C-alpha cells in the first residue's frame, strides 16, 4: 500500500537556514545540509528546500546547498523558490535535486511547465500553488504571496495537471504561518479535481492538522515547517501519531 508522505520544509536564505531546528548537538544550526540530514535520518519521506534568497547575487548559494545535500541525503529532495526558467530547473537537477517546484513562473508563463515536464519528465516537476480565499473562491498569489493574480486556484490546478505537472504543492496563504491548520476545503477541492498527487502546505500547528490534511483534505503528502523546526515534534513522532490514527505511513 502506498504510504502518505511527511515532508519537512526548510527555508533557506543566502545558503543558510532561516528557521531552524533547535538541536543542541548541531554544530552549525544554520547549515541546511546538516538539518536535511537530521530530517532524513529521522524518517522524513522527502526533504523540501524553499529558497527565499532575495537578491540575485546570492542566488547561486542554493546550488551549492543542493549539491552538498544530495551527496548526504538519500531520500527525494525538492527545491523551490525563484525558479524562473527551464535552465534554472536544469541547473537544480544537475546539482542533485530530484524535483523542482515552480510557483510564479508557472503562473506567468505556463509554457515553462509544459517544456520542462517534456524535457525532464513530469516526475520532477512540482507546481506550487499559493492560494488565498476571496469570497467563495480561491485566487492565486505569486512572488511569495505578494501579488494577487486574480486567477482561480482550482481552475489553475487543473490547467497545471494538463500542462504536465507531476504533483501540486498547495499552500493556503490565509493559513501559512498561523498554525491553525491547513485550509481543508481548498485541499480537498483541488485533490478531487486533479488525478495527480497533492501536497498540503500552510498552517500546521499540531499533529492533528497533519491527520486532517490527509483524512479530510485527501492530500497524498503533508508538508510542514515550524512544527519540526523548534523541536516541538520530530518526524518520527508525527509518523507514529499518524499511524495511530490509521493513516498508512512508512515507519
Amino acid at each position, binding site marked *: *500500500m502506498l504510504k502518505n508522505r511527511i515532508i519537512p520544509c526548510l527555508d533557506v536564505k543566502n545558503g543558510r537556514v532561516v528557521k531552524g531546528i533547535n538541536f543542541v548537538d548541531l554544530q552549525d544550526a544554520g547549515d541546511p545540509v546538516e538539518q536535511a540530514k537530521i530530517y532524513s535520518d529521522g524518517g522524513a519521506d522527502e526533504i523540501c528546500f524553499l529558497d527565499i534568497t532575495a537578491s540575485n547575487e546570492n542566488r547561486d548559494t542554493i546550488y551549492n546547498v543542493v549539491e552538498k545535500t544530495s551527496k548526504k541525503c538519500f*531520500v527525494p529532495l525538492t527545491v523551490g523558490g525563484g525558479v524562473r526558467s527551464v535552465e534554472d530547473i536544469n541547473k537544480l*537537477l*544537475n546539482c542533485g535535486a530530484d524535483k523542482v517546484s515552480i510557483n510564479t513562473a508557472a503562473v506567468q508563463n505556463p509554457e515553462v511547465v509544459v517544456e520542462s515536464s517534456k524535457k525532464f*519528465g513530469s516526475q520532477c516537476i512540482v507546481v506550487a500553488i499559493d492560494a488565498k480565499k476571496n469570497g467563495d473562491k480561491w485566487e492565486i498569489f505569486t512572488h511569495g504571496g505578494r501579488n494577487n493574480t486574480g486567477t482561480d486556484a482550482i481552475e489553475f490546478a487543473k490547467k497545471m495537471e494538463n500542462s504536465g505537472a507531476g504533483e501540486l504543492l498547495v499552500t493556503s496563504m490565509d493559513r501559512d504561518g498561523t498554525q491553525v491548520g491547513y485550509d481543508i476545503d481548498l485541499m480537498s477541492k483541488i485533490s478531487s479535481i486533479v488525478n495527480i498527487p497533492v501536497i498540503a502546505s500552510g498552517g500546521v500547528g499540531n499533529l492533528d492538522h497533519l491527520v486532517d490534511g490527509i483524512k479530510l483534505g485527501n492530500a497524498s503528502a503533508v508538508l510542514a515547517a515550524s512544527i519540526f523546526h523548534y523541536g516541538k515534534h520530530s518526524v518520527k513522532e508525527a509518523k507514529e501519531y499518524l499511524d495511530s490514527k490509521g493513516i498508512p505511513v512508512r515507519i
Partner: protein
Amino acid sequence: MNVTIVDYNSGNISSVINSFKEVAKDKVNIEVTSDLSKIKSSDKVVLPGQGSFKSCVDALNKINGLVDTLSEFAINNKKPLLGICVGLQMFADVGFEEIETKGLGWISGKVSKIDNQNGKYKLPHIGWNEINITKDSKIFKDIENKSHMYFVHSYEFIPEDKNVVSATTDYSSNIVCSVEKENIFGTQFHPEKSDKIGLKIIDNFINL
C-alpha cells in the same frame, strides 16, 4: 572493479551517481559515461532512466553503437546489468508511453500505463510503497520482505514470463517492481532515493 553508469542524456542522473559513489567509497571505481569502450571493459553496468519510455529509447539510439554495446555486455557476455525505473522498463519488447515504441527486447513483455481505476488511484504513483519479494534475488540479500522503497512512475512493466519477477508492489494491482533474469536486474523503484535500505540494494549489486 569498475561500475559504469550509462550517461545517455536520459534526464537527471545525479542521484544515481551520488548513491553509487556513497556505497562504493574508494573500493570500487564508478564511471559515468557513454563511451563504448569503457562500457565494454567495465565489470557492471547501471542503466538509469527518467522521463518517458520513448524519450529514453530515443536517447539510447542517438548514441551510435550504444544499444549494441549494451546488448553485447548483458546478453552475449552475460555481465551484470541493473536497470532503474525506465532503465528497467526498456528491457521490454515494446512500450506504450506517448506512442508505441520498440524497447531493447531483453525480457519479453510490454510497458503499459497503470490502470488508475477511473481516477481512484492518482498517477504518477509517487512515494514510498512496500515491496513483496516473490523470489530470492541476489540484489535483495539482507532486504526484508515488505521493505519500503521510493517510487515515481505512471507506467508498469508486464513481463510475459512471470518467473523473472522478483518483487511486486500493490498499487491498483500487483505491479512488477523488480526483475531478475540471469545477469539482468531491474528495479521500478529508485534504490538511490530509498534511504539506507535502497543503498543496501546498490551495495548488493556492486558486490555481486
